[in-house]
């Protein structure tokens, strides 16, 4: 069954959505959208690093994404003006990555697959990496779920309950770096943040508790992947952007529904 590239693509998308649903919800709750951008754009730099050092792409992106996510949360903890700083980091990471990668011979042809993903070329090994990473992220989030929620709701309440908010911030930082490494092959560096934010935002209007929002976001993400694949096959459009297009359409529908429901 895994011989079929379409099945592999669909499984890859579903695996990613299982992790991006809950993690993306935290990104939305904590207003970390730009944080996601900075980390995912750094993935291109990770690709350049991996190619230069002959490392697996997944490892290179993981290392650089971890470094970027760590830098950003350290700066945030030191009270930097995050909006501007993150903007600077996000765009410079992308620019540095693109410049760095241009030094690696024979990669220009593949560049768009790193930027926009190449879900139709997912191999069995990629699939194992994607599901392994997604399972890791999911396990991490479930393990610390109550603490993560409390720290997200209010750092003061967390402290008073004996929870250290910095530990929970670190948990999310690590989870984000892993998701970036996992998502690179599927939607590409430019659209990873979209895969985190759009399904979660679409789930917001339909949910009353954090758990329902995370679950619905995962479901919407999976639907977007399947729908995007179908769109891509039918119209011969690039798969990564097609997935995000479907996610955006679901978001629009959910926002309209949410508005109507609250009238």
């Amino acid at each position: 069954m895994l011989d079929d590239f379409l099945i592999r693509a669909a499984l890859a998308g579903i695996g990613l959505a299982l992790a991006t649903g809950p993690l993306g919800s935290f990104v939305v709750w904590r207003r970390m959208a730009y944080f996601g951008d900075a980390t995912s754009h750094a993935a291109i730099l990770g690709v350049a690093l991996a190619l230069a050092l002959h490392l697996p792409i997944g490892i290179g992106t993981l290392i650089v994404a971890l470094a970027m996510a760590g830098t950003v949360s350290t700066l945030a903890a030191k009270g930097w003006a995050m909006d501007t700083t993150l903007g600077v980091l996000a765009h410079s990471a992308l620019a540095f990555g693109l410049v760095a990668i241009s030094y690696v011979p024979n990669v220009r042809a593949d560049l768009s697959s790193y930027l926009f993903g190449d879900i139709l070329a997912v191999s069995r090994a990629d699939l194992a990496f994607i599901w392994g990473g997604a399972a890791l992220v999911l396990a991490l989030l479930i393990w610390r779920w109550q603490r993560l929620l409390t720290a997200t709701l209010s750092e003061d309440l967390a402290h008073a309950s004996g929870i250290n908010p910095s530990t929970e911030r670190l948990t999310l930082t690590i989870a984000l770096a892993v998701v970036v490494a996992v998502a690179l092959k599927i939607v590409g560096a430019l659209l990873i943040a979209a895969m985190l934010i759009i399904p979660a935002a679409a789930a917001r209007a339909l949910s009353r508790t954090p758990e329902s929002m995370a679950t619905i976001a995962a479901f919407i993400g999976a639907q977007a992947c399947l729908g995007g694949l179908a769109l891509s096959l039918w119209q011969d459009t690039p798969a990564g952007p097609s997935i995000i297009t479907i996610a955006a359409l679901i978001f629009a529908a959910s926002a309209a529904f949410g508005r109507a429901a609250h009238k």
Partner: protein
Amino acid sequence: MPRLPKGRRMSLISAQHISVAFGAANVLTDVSLAIDQSEIVTLIGPNGSGKSTLLRALLGIVPLASGQVQRAPDLRLGYVPQKLAIDRAMPMTVRRFLSLPQNVRDKDARAALARVGLAGQEGAQMAQLSGGQMQRAMLARALLTDPQILVLDEPTQGLDQQGEAAFYRLIEELRLETGAAVLMVSHDLHVVMAASDRVICLNGHICCQGAPHVVSSAPEYRALFGLGTQGALALYQHAHDHVHDGGHVPAGPAPTTGAKDAFGRSPTDPHYGHNHA
């Protein structure tokens, strides 16, 4: 109130000579205090005098510049912050909020909500609660931890009059039932005097502390009784010139004629209340 002999007293939370600074600004200087079992202690002081900061320092939320805080091992603590801003981006029902971070049973959640006057509000969204309702929800959550101590930052703000009366009855009941101690910040001096075992006046440091009847027996206090929210300010001022002991030995306020000055000087004046230095 039950008290163990001095020296063998088990303090739930104590602070030894703590100071807190934000950047260059010293907000708390050399504050020492101890809260014992079943004690109701109220912090009073003008706006910006560091009351919330002191609570936050005791809970480990803000770092200390010096000194240390000790909490009894495995202390069960219920905290109601002065303000809780819940982002609309996060869906959160009142029921779900009560189970953070410790899961509580439906039955207990229902009982706690009924106790704070929010019966049947399990399904309401936290972000849509009114100020007073939010206050009640936070109190219910604090009660559900079966606290040995409740740390409450202006718990009656935004409560209607009935709610306020019910609140003070509730903490009195709670103390009788469970022996919980209460450390709270309050501006309504009348009630403070009636409901506390000990009153601590704070203005960056502890200006005075003592049993309310000691504080309120001063002639100035009677003169100030009708002055509403100015009361806390004036009380602080009147007691301030008194000897500082820095510890938790109650200091009886000395009569002064400074009450009028309290209204002439601004509490934001950096030298306000520091005329002893």
